[in-house]
């Protein structure tokens, strides 16, 4: 098999992974629905599906890593991967955009309308006469049915620390990247490890913050629209940090194994882009969810 394929087309051989992927995802979602319907009692299909997903990730990425290490990919393949990753991140941006859109709609329109603004004077007068539009919303329109939180989550403390951590991690991953580009393995590993550590600390603090919100602030998923938007945005972000940290960890392992070279490290770059994306989303969160 050739080692350098520059200027040639590459087409992968048939692969079982897509089918495994389909079975894994379908099993997982059936398991998830059954679990929800059983009131939280774990349905067997859910763990089976999740294991299949894990198998899929190891298997598929493993195969790609092997092929890449075997030098089968040429520049064109590399470019396809890059385009793919960029537009994948764009689709993630749109996913978050939906939730940010909801937040803005709630804050700009719903609060105003429930309080009688625009063409909703009668909404206020007849349905929610006691409603006051203050954000964060602590007293819901029907506070007896949906009890609001006791207190709001401010921007200082954990959220501020977490902002610093994520910003810092963006710097460390960039330093690692520079090191990689100069083939300096040791700093690469050190800075990458630092990034992973920062990601984990972030997640740890986020869990702390959630515990605090539930225990001390009475701020929960079911405490009305403030809780809904708060936990959906920060929750999906946290999920992305988890994924990002895991991917960084894999990159760390691969870096230690010596997989990357200064001119061939697409996987590393993709993960770094992803990490920056997660970072930017956090900035949006910090500003619009915690601060303003």
């Amino acid at each position, binding site marked *: 098999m050739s080692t350098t394929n520059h200027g040639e087309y590459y087409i992968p051989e048939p692969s079982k992974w897509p089918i495994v992927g389909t079975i894994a995802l379908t099993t997982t979602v059936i398991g998830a629905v059954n679990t929800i319907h059983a009131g939280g009692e774990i349905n067997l299909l859910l763990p089976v599906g999740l294991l299949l997903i894990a198998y899929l990730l190891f298997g598929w990425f493993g195969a790609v890593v092997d092929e890449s290490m075997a030098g089968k990919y040429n520049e064109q393949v590399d470019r396809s991967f890059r385009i793919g990753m960029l537009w994948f991140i764009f689709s993630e941006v749109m996913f978050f955009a939906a939730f940010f859109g909801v937040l803005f709609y709630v804050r700009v329109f719903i609060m105003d309308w429930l309080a009688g603004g625009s063409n909703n004077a009668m909404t206020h007068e007849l349905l929610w006469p006691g409603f006051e539009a203050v954000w964060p919303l602590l007293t819901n329109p029907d506070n007896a049915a949906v009890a609001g939180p006791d207190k709001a989550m401010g921007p200082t403390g954990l959220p501020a620390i977490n902002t610093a951590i994520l910003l810092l991690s963006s710097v460390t991953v960039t330093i690692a990247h520079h090191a990689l580009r100069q083939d300096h393995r040791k700093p690469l590993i050190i800075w990458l490890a630092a990034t992973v550590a920062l990601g984990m600390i972030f997640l740890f603090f986020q869990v702390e913050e959630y515990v605090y919100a539930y225990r001390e602030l009475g701020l929960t998923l079911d405490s*009305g629209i403030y809780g809904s938007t708060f936990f959906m945005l920060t929750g999906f972000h946290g999920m992305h940090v988890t994924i990002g940290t895991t991917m960084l960890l894999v990159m760390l392992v691969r870096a230690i194994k010596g997989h990357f070279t200064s001119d061939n490290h697409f996987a590393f770059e993709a993960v770094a882009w992803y990490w920056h994306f997660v970072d930017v989303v956090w900035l949006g969160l910090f500003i619009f969810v915690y601060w303003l």
Partner: protein
Amino acid sequence: MSAVIEETHEHHDHKPTGIGRWLFSTNHKDIGTMYLWFSFIMFFVGGSMALVIRAELFQPGLQLIEPEFFNQMTTLHGLIMVFGVIMPAFVGLANWMVPMMIGAPDMALPRMNNWSFWLLPGAFGLLIASLVMSLMGMGSAPNFGWTFYAPLSTTYGPSSTDFFIFSVHLMGISSIMGAINIIATIMNMRAPGMTYMKMPIFVWTWFITAYLLIAVMPVLAGVVTMMLMDRHFGTSFFNAAGGGDPVLFQHVFWFFGHPEVYIMILPSFGIISQIVPTFARKKIFGYSSMVYATASIAFLSFIVWAHHMFTTGMPVAGELFFMYATMLIAIPTGVKVFNWVSTMWKGSMTFETPMLFAIAFIFLFTIGGFTGLMLCIAPADFQYHDTYFVVAHFHYVLVTGAAFGIMAGVYYWIPKWTGNMYDEKLGKLHFWLTAISSNVLFFPMHFVGLAGMPRRIPDYSLQFAEFNAMATVGAFVFGFSQLIFLYNVLKTQRGGVKATSKVWEGAEGLEWTLPSPAPFHSFTTPPTVK
């Protein structure tokens, strides 16, 4: 010179065999074929549901099915036609044709391509399973319309709604991966010399469609996720008691939903723009304005969504904005129509089946576009909204628009796919039956709609009887005519007059330089484009 590097190096045109060829495929043609067959099967499934609807509506009164089941039929018919027929058919056509048209051997990301396809049977399996359960008397399938407005789908949704939600997630993943693949293919796999402004219009329309998909499918995923949270985890997104708003659901849904309807038409525009020049034996008129018009339509599609929501009581400034923005779409769409007509003008036309479908498309889509324009006039929409006038509008743009475009494309390209000519007589028979019956089916809907018949009802008052009976007759003729199409496709697949590589006298483009049937790997060496 470049060459395809394959794992299995021995044969140049090596085809995997057996079931594995399909399950594990990394070949754009095989995957395209699977998409197309999936879509075709779903067409019969969703169409059969439409026939159930039409049978119940043949006469006033409840004859055949319960109102509850009627709602399930309407919902699944809409969902299957949109997500299971039109979209997969387009992706199938893109898979087959885009690599050939730009001079590539395959799609850019072949394994992901296969995954995109195989998620669909999973997604629709979930959806159809809930219908099977409903038929067996276990709960109800989704019954809230393809637009699944909250709170009907949240607080009041049947428990199968959760399967529906995840099924939409899977479809979303599939569409996003499909779209990424097409973008990567077009950006990265073009043959030397194939600049953007030399790409065939079909490739252009798909390129733009792919962007629409990546931009809005995640939003759809977001809205169903919020539904799931509202249903089971106590959030209040669509519940005023907790500070949410049911109308918020509609905003997010239609932010997806309106671009979605252009996702379902732009590739058909592309197909028509390939076919008309071929059979007029004349270059497409106004190539670059066609490209710009497509891009303008795509752009505008993001700022018009609330024209579906004029009756929700938006502030009047919002109503005006969305009315004006929507009206603007008529301009670039008009440019396309005028360009097609100018392409025919002073051509040397022949009327094989693809051309017949293309011409019918231009007529009937334009009629659907006109009714769209009427709908976007807010004060008049207060009367049209949620009546059969809307149903008439969207079947004109979807059935005689999108679906006719697909049928035209199948007839146009099937000789390239199979190496055989289809049966022209059967094709023409299929065309005439389809074109006439679709009008018998959908035209009367304008009248009953204007006369005040709401949509999504299993029974109606007496003044609507005649036209409903007529529509039902049209529906059955239309439905059964599609069996001719099926037969013709199967027959062509099996054999027939061998097609030349160019197939059509007036055809131009890289795909026609390949032999018919096209080789397993389209262009093993990149062609050069002047």
